[in-house]
């Protein structure tokens, strides 16, 4: 009885305590916001990886130090709920001043809730005064010159600026590597990688130690297998590149006219490669999550892990061994089985820009928010961000941290081949088929034939469905741009009118070609 009473008292006490703490926080925030001497700006993001929040915090504190009277707060939101969260905040007219948005953000959302930054990006970033970027338009200080900016193609405006670049690498356990091999000469080609994997399996068998070559999960396996698959479509991409753009095609276009089929040698080689590497992951890896793979690697049960620069802080925090990094080992041109499809190492130039922030229309202090963005993406601000987060810089001339220099984008390389999304980063009918039957490709008793047998009956229909989906998307853009082009014309904005015609006509031609091809 007495024990129960005490438990109740403790319970009520905790409840009251939480209420008091929460109330103090709410009141303190309200008081702060009412203080006319302080301007508060907030930015939201989904980067919960280790080190990121600390990096943003460091940049915010430095900005506040340089700008007395301004307070900067970050709102980290888990990636799984971020999309719903931003929609709720935007619809409720209570968004933060700056929001991180992904590549697939619809034009309508950008137009309705965000402010174009075009005027700003064409002027120099004031925080670059005294550096080599002094006087350079803000746009040109980014490693890709903002060529891939969200909304640029259709809205003809710059809406966001990136703070980082991401690349993917193989992580490895340096101590374990030395223990197994007696050296640290990492594989640079697929053949060497396979040799390393074979020796790891032998080592595990010989010593009875639980260790596999590569930590696996649907997410991490996809990173490695996607890169290997695309190595096999590099040459094919150029062969079928009728417009000579030297860029990979959308997979629906690759298969549409029948000149490339599931039996094209490069496609079969790509699938064979995926099947072969499937053995190097732990059994059942498709059921595992990204965190499981990192945990497995951190426990020393896997020699290697394929993941991106975004995970470096998290992995380093969880491991007691030192981590080494090397590029994903693709087949060399002289590889007897897979070399015939390869052009060479893949260029990462101008790729992978992310952590892109956008200014919301509801921002009460848009000039301060833009000023903060300029600081974050200045030489000094981006250096501070990268030094603390261990991420790669999005700004020209910012030095990557020494510890993670191996993530610096490779610029001496060739265009990637086209991908067929196997387990992630895809959409549409072909993707649905691959996700449904992909397990056959990597199952111990499966293989390429088994996978293709399951795929064939539905494949052509899936290709046509995806081509139709692409046609509809282009046609939708064409219709929307009719209104935009009329408006730019009436406003006398000749440059924007010209750019809109150009975008519209290119999409209209593709939509029309698809319409005729799909008859």
């Amino acid at each position, binding site marked *: 009885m007495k024990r129960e009473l005490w438990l109740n008292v403790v319970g009520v006490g905790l409840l009251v305590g939480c209420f008091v703490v929460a109330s103090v926080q709410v009141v303190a925030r309200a008081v702060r916001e009412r203080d006319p001497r302080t301007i508060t700006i907030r930015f939201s993001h989904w980067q919960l990886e280790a080190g990121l929040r600390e990096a943003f915090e460091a940049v915010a504190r430095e900005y506040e130090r340089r*700008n007395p009277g301004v307070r900067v707060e970050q709102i980290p939101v888990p990636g799984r709920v971020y999309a719903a969260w931003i929609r709720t905040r935007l619809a409720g007219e209570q968004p933060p001043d700056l929001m991180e948005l992904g590549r697939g953000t619809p*034009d*309508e959302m950008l*137009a*309705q809730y965000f402010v*174009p930054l075009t005027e*700003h990006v064409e002027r120099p970033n*004031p925080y670059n005064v005294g550096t080599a970027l002094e006087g350079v338009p803000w746009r040109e200080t980014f*490693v*890709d*010159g903002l*060529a891939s900016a969200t909304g*640029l*193609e*259709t*809205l003809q*405006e710059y809406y966001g600026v990136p703070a980082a670049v991401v690349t993917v690498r193989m992580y490895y356990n340096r101590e374990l590597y030395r223990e197994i091999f007696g050296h640290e000469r990492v594989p640079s080609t697929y053949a060497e990688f396979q040799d390393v994997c074979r020796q790891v399996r032998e080592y595990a068998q010989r010593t009875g130690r639980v260790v596999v070559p590569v930590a696996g999960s649907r997410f991490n396996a996809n990173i490695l297998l996607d890169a290997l698959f695309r190595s096999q479509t590099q040459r094919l991409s150029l062969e079928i590149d009728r*417009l*000579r*753009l*030297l*860029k990979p095609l959308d997979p629906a276009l690759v298969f549409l006219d029948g000149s490339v089929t599931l039996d094209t040698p490069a496609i079969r080689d790509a699938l064979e490669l995926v099947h072969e590497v499937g053995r190097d992951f732990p059994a059942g890896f498709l059921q595992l999550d990204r965190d499981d793979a990192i945990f497995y690697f951190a426990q020393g049960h896997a020699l290697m892990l394929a993941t991106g620069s975004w995970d470096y802080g998290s992995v380093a925090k969880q491991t007691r061994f030192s981590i080494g990094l090397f590029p994903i080992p693709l087949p060399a041109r002289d590889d007897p089985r897979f070399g015939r499809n390869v052009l060479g190492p893949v*260029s990462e*130039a*101008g*790729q992978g820009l992310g952590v892109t922030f956008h200014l919301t229309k509801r921002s009460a202090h*848009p*000039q*301060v928010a833009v*000023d903060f963005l300029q600081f974050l993406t200045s030489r000094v601000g981006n250096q501070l961000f990268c030094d603390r987060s261990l991420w790669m810089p999005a700004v020209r001339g910012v030095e990557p941290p020494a510890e993670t220099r191996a993530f610096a984008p490779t*610029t001496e390389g*060739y*265009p*990637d081949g086209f991908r067929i999304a196997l387990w992630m980063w895809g959409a549409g009918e072909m993707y649905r088929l691959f996700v449904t039957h992909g397990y056959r490709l990597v199952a111990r008793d499966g293989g390429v034939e088994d996978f293709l047998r399951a795929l064939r009956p539905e494949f052509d229909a899936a290709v046509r469905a995806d081509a139709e989906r692409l046609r509809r998307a282009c046609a939708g853009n*064409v*219709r*929307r741009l*009719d*209104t*935009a082009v*009329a*408006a730019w*014309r*009436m*406003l006398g*904005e000749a*440059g*924007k*009118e010209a*750019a809109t*015609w*150009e975008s519209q*006509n*290119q999409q*209209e*031609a593709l939509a*029309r*070609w698809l*319409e*005729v091809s799909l008859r």
Partner: protein
Amino acid sequence: MRRARQVSLAWVFAGGQLLSVIGVAAGDDLAAAWLKAARMLPAEAYREFAAAAESREVLLGRAVTLLNVPPVTPGNLERAARWLESLRGDDEVGIAATYFLARLEQVHRMPPNPERALRLYEELYHRHPQHPLAQMGWVKAAIWRVYEPGTDFAALERSGEGLTDPQAVRDFHLAMADAAGRLRLPAEKQLEHLLAVDRVGVAKRKTAGDVWVRIAELAREAGQMELAREYARRFLAEFPNDQRAHLVRERLGR
């Protein structure tokens, strides 16, 4: 320093506000509505046009925004078509009305009526052969026709020779170059049209990069190495950080 910076940023924002205010003060009270339409906010723009005093420009604004006000319905499209039909004529608004009526028939109407659209484009071109919208209508018709089985590509090419408006010339040749590639016509055709595009100049930086890479590649294949090198050099100078730069350099730039 900080104050000066924030003052300059404030001027940029204030400038934007001021421009729209000037527009209103100068009697151009439709500028704000057109800006919303340009920024793909058709519903908001339509509301402003609907509230404005009726004029030919206002009716045009209502019609072209209604084409994209969600949900797009046959009833709304019919209403837009009626407005456009009533506006057709030989002044700027009248010419725009005929052009957008053709667009409505070609890509907005459910189901589309491309035959009527083609007739309207032709009528517009014959009445106002020098007008940019009439010439763009001709380009739209060419894009529609070129992929139609049985179309005489050479005849279509000749039909574009009368185009003079730089935007129409550019988009006509760009469309013909793409079609030559997709229809697997001889590579020289594609090259010829892309060179014509480059002569008139493109509007977007991204398109410039693509056009230069394509010319370099096609010229290389045709054995025109000087031409190939010239365009490779232009591409590399402007886009050193492009994923294609190394390949272009390796093939032609050295």
